[in-house]
């Protein structure tokens, strides 16, 4: 289905994000040990690894939801410290969390603009501009080709796939510099997955937004990602470019570089039932 060819990332594309030596413990649980990742302008980076490898924790540190025990984050050449998700969003880092972070009791359009509401002055009061948010949400969802019964309906009435689409749309809406997607395809059917992958592919073509994508399916990784980082037991065990590596090669590298348990897990992700 990949009819368009995406030109490879320019070798001199600047590094927009560097997370170095990040460690994180939750009490006795070690989630991340000395993890370093690098993201270049316009690059789509796949973050893979078995369940509990620490992928979500790493991106929640990037989004400001968790604070790292050790390590630094350098964004656009400056060292940054995010005390809360507000800080990260203010720096142009948008995250679609694995749990989607949608508010079931609020309407679709309120969810779309949560944390960056439009206001209007009324009798000297700063009130929500619901009409503008409703129109903008509808317009934007239309542009992205996402159809839902109504932007007025509360999110708890939507299907899992529809919710996932809303969460993705919300993250792209504010034209972020860095977009982080934690398993954005989990609840999607084949066609919806293809649609979200198409949105990512469009971003990749323009090379304006840098993307970190957590997915499990290696076909999808090779379709939309420039590079792949394999996280294992809280460490980056492999960093490879998808252009220089074939799927088979990748599996071989993963096998040779890691213990048997991880190989089995990795292989099962690629070809379920084969190992």
């Amino acid at each position, binding site marked *: 289905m990949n009819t368009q060819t995406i030109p490879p990332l320019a070798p001199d594309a600047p590094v927009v994000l560097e997370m170095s030596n990040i460690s994180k413990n939750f009490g006795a649980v070690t989630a991340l040990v000395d993890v370093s990742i690098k993201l270049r302008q316009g690059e789509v980076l796949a973050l893979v690894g078995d369940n509990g490898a620490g992928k979500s924790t790493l991106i929640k540190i990037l989004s400001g939801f968790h604070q790292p025990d050790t390590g630094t984050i350098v964004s656009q050449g400056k060292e940054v410290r995010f005390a809360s998700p507000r800080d990260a969003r203010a720096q142009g880092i948008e995250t679609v969390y694995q749990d989607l972070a949608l508010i079931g009791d609020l309407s679709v359009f309120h969810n779309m603009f949560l944390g960056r509401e439009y206001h209007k002055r009324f009798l000297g009061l700063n009130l929500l501009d619901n009409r503008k948010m409703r129109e903008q949400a509808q317009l934007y969802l239309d542009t992205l080709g996402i159809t839902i019964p109504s932007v007025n*309906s509360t999110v708890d009435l939507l299907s899992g796939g529809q919710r996932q689409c809303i969460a993705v749309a919300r993250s792209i809406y504010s034209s972020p510099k860095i977009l982080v997607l934690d398993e954005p395809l989990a609840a999607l059917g084949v066609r919806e997955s293809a649609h979200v992958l198409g949105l990512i592919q469009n971003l990749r073509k323009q090379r304006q937004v840098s993307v970190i994508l957590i997915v499990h399916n290696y076909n999808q990784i090779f379709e939309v990602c420039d590079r792949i980082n394999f996280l294992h037991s809280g460490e980056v065990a492999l960093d490879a470019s998808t252009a220089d590596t074939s799927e088979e090669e990748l599996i071989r590298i993963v096998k040779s570089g890691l213990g048997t348990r991880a190989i089995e897990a990795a292989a099962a992700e690629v070809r379920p039932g084969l190992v």
Partner: protein
Amino acid sequence: MQPTKTARAGKSAVGVKVPHTMTERLLILLSRYREASIAVVAIVLVIYFQFGSDGGFLSPQFMSVVLRDTGRLGLVAAAEVMLMITGEIDLSLSAIFSIAPYVMALLSVTYGLPLAVGALIGVLIGILVGAINGIITVRFKVPSLITTVGMLFFLQGIVVSIYNSQPIVAPVEQPFNAIFGQSLYQPSDALLSWHGITAFTPFLWAVLVVLVLALVLNRTTFGLHTIATGSNIIGAREIGVRTDRMKIYNFMIAGGCAAFAGIINTAQFTSADPQAGSPFLTLQAIAAAVIGGTSLLGGSGTVIGALIGAFVVASLNNGLVMIGAQATVSDIYLGAAIIAAMILSIQVDRLRTRRRV
């Protein structure tokens, strides 16, 4: 590749199921117009009492009594609704209701401080107590049920120990008393005169506060973030809502409202009783909130519903006595009403989630 087309085709396969049975439709209707459904209950109740009392229920004198109770209870109920939406509860409101006017009266008789100034200090004390409740709850992760029960005993202990449990007779300072609760109404007065209006001031204040809170809840970022906090606290935090602050602010609003209600009560009776607010007041306010359509689960609620709920509770309390029932009988109805309202509210919520595809 044509993402637009693919998605359209994909999306049309999923949609919201249309409710089928009559019961389902009725429940959906109830969930959409919660205030309207409780208003219908209130109207039915009024008609019942009006006939049962041979027309006495809707007389200005009796309505003044019912609406005064409604105002006092409605203020506390609306305060409780704000907190219930964030997923918290405050059981210390009755103690704030007692301590704020007590301080006001004390400052007046001891230092000659004008009541208006004392009232302001009283409200500030309520807001401060709310802030302490909120900070203990979010910072130390003590469930608010426990925090505020502790605060209830603590404040109640303080207020009775100040002056040996003695009520303080507060001076009358016009127009303060008339504006904030004292009734100057005589049967000979016209209803639309100044004296006529004073018959209903506690209710009018409650209406004003409720309208402001409704505006805040439905039309401001503060309200949106309050709902988000109670509906999905992790998700709200992930997207950048300051959930701890939202809770603390709503505790402060609740404390301020309860203090204001207590001051109105004292202005009405020109006396500050250290036991003016019994814990029963808070429980009745929660009852009013639940009957008005607010669930204890957080994420949704209506302050207007709470005011109508307070009217229902006040009507039951006064109306049943009027038509000749024992005073205690109203509690039987109240208890049944709370449980019925809660069952209905949960049924409605369950239906909503069942409709998820």
